[in-house]
C-alpha cells in the first residue's frame, strides 16, 4: 500500500475513534458510519438533536429539532478539504440558515485533515445559528440573512454546547422520613 494511503487510513481511524468518543459526551450528536463495510471509516451520517429552523413558505419559519448531515473524507483529504466536496445536508427539507441550501452546507474554510469533531462542532453552530454571517455575499440564503437581521434577539436558536456541560450534583443524606416531609413542606 502506498505510504500516503497508510497515512490517510491512520488519520481516518483516528477520526473514527475521536468522533465516536465525542458523540458519547454529547446529548445532541449521534454519529454513525454510512458504510461500515468499508476498510477505512470515511463516510458518516451526523444527526443533531437540537433546535434549528425550517422554512416551508416565505413567511413561515418554524423551529424543528432534528437535522442530518453527511460527512465524507475524500481521497486527498490530507491535503485539501472543502464544504462542497465533504458535506451534504440530508434533512429536514427547508432547513433555514444563511449557510445551508440543501444539499449544500458551508461551515467555513476547512484545512486538509480537519478533524471530524471540528466538523461536527461547526455544523452544530451553523444549524443552531450560533455561527452565522448576515452578509448576503457570504451566505447561501439571502432570505435567511434578511430574517436573521430582523430577529437578532432570538438568536441563537439553541445556545447549548455540543459537548455535554460539566455537571456536579451534591447529594445530602436525609436522616428520616419526617425531615424529608418537613423539607417538602
Amino acid at each position: 500500500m502506498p505510504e500516503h494511503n497508510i497515512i490517510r487510513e491512520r488519520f481516518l481511524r483516528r477520526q473514527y475513534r475521536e468522533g465516536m468518543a465525542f458523540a458519547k459526551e454529547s446529548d445532541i450528536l449521534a454519529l454513525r458510519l454510512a458504510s461500515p463495510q468499508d476498510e477505512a471509516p470515511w463516510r458518516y451520517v451526523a444527526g443533531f438533536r437540537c433546535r434549528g429552523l425550517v422554512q416551508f413558505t416565505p413567511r413561515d419559519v418554524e423551529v424543528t429539532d432534528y437535522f442530518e448531515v453527511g460527512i465524507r473524507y475524500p481521497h486527498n483529504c490530507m491535503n485539501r478539504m472543502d464544504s462542497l466536496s465533504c458535506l451534504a445536508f440530508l434533512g429536514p427539507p427547508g432547513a433555514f440558515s444563511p449557510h445551508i441550501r440543501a444539499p449544500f452546507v458551508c461551515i467555513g474554510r476547512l484545512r486538509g485533515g480537519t478533524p471530524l469533531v471540528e466538523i461536527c462542532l461547526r455544523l452544530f453552530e451553523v444549524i443552531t445559528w450560533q455561527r452565522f454571517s448576515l452578509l448576503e455575499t457570504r451566505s447561501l440564503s439571502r432570505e435567511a440573512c434578511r430574517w436573521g437581521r430582523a430577529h437578532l434577539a432570538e438568536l441563537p436558536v439553541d445556545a447549548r454546547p455540543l459537548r455535554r456541560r460539566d455537571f456536579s450534583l451534591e447529594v445530602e443524606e436525609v436522616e428520616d422520613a419526617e425531615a424529608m416531609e418537613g423539607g417538602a413542606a
Partner: protein
Amino acid sequence: MKAVSRRRAILALRSALPGLTDSGPARWRFSDPKRASLEVAVGLVDDWALFAARADGVPFMFRAHGLSPWGMLLWHTEVPPSVRCALSAGSRAFSVRGELPVAALDAPSVRCRIEEMCRGFRHIAAKFLPDASQRPAAACERPISGSSPRPAAAAPGPGEEAPGARPDVASVVRAAGWNFSERASGILAVELDVPHGVEPALVSAAPEGGLSLSVELARFEAIPDACRAAIGIFLLELADGLRGIRPMVREDGGSCAITLAALVPTVHELHGALAATAVAYRISCEEIRALRDVSIAKAYSEARNWSV
C-alpha cells in the same frame, strides 16, 4: 507611544524594578536576584516593554544542544507561558524573550508578571547555561523583593481579577466585542477573521489565572523531517516578531498539531491578544501549508542558513 505615557511607563518600570540601570536610550537592564549571571535587558518599543534575557552581559542566545527548531517548539509546552524562544532571521542561535504591554506597567501585578517572566528565563537558562545545574533549586523559587512568587497571588488592582478568581469567560469575551460559541463547559470558540472565512480560537480560564487562548494552525498525521525543520524555523522566526503569543507543537501518537497560544493575564488584554493571534494566523497559515512540500522546505531551510 505618547511622551506622557512613556514617562509614566519609565517611572512604573523603575518603581517595579529598583535595581534597573540605564544601558542606552529607552533601554535598561537588571540582574536576576536569584541568578546573578542572568541579566534581563528591558526596552520600550511602541506600546510594549520588551524583555530579553542576557547571560554574563551578552544577549542570551544559544545554539540548541541537540534540540532542533521543531524540538524547541515541542519544548515550548513546558516553558512558563510568559516567555518564549525565538530565532532572528538568518541566525542559528535562539534568543529568549518576553514582553508586557506598557498599560500593564501601572498595574499592581506588574512585579509578579516580571517575576513570572524571570522564572521563565531561569527555566530556559537552567537547560542551556552550564552553571544552572549547580545552583540550589530552592534559590530559584525566591520572589523578587516585594513581589509574590506567582501572579495569582498578586493583589488585584482596579479592573483586575481577584487572586484565584475564575473569570466568567463568556462575559469577558462578549465585553471585548468578539463573536463566540460555547464548545464545552468554560471553553469558548471565538471567531477570528482570517482569509476565506473564520477560524475558531479556543478561550478558557487558565489554571494559573487569567485566560488561555489558542488557535490551531495546522495538524499533520505524518510529516517528513525536512518539513519539520523548515516549519520549526519559520515559526521560531515568527515568534521573533510576535507580542505575547508563542507557537507550540504537540505530538500525540504520531499526529502533531501546531498551535499559536497566549496567556492573557488580565481581561483588558484579551482584545489585543485575539487581534494579534488573528494577524499571526493570517501571516503563517499559507506558509505552513507550502512548507509541507519537501523540496520547498529544503530550499527554505537552506536559505535560512539551516541545512537538513
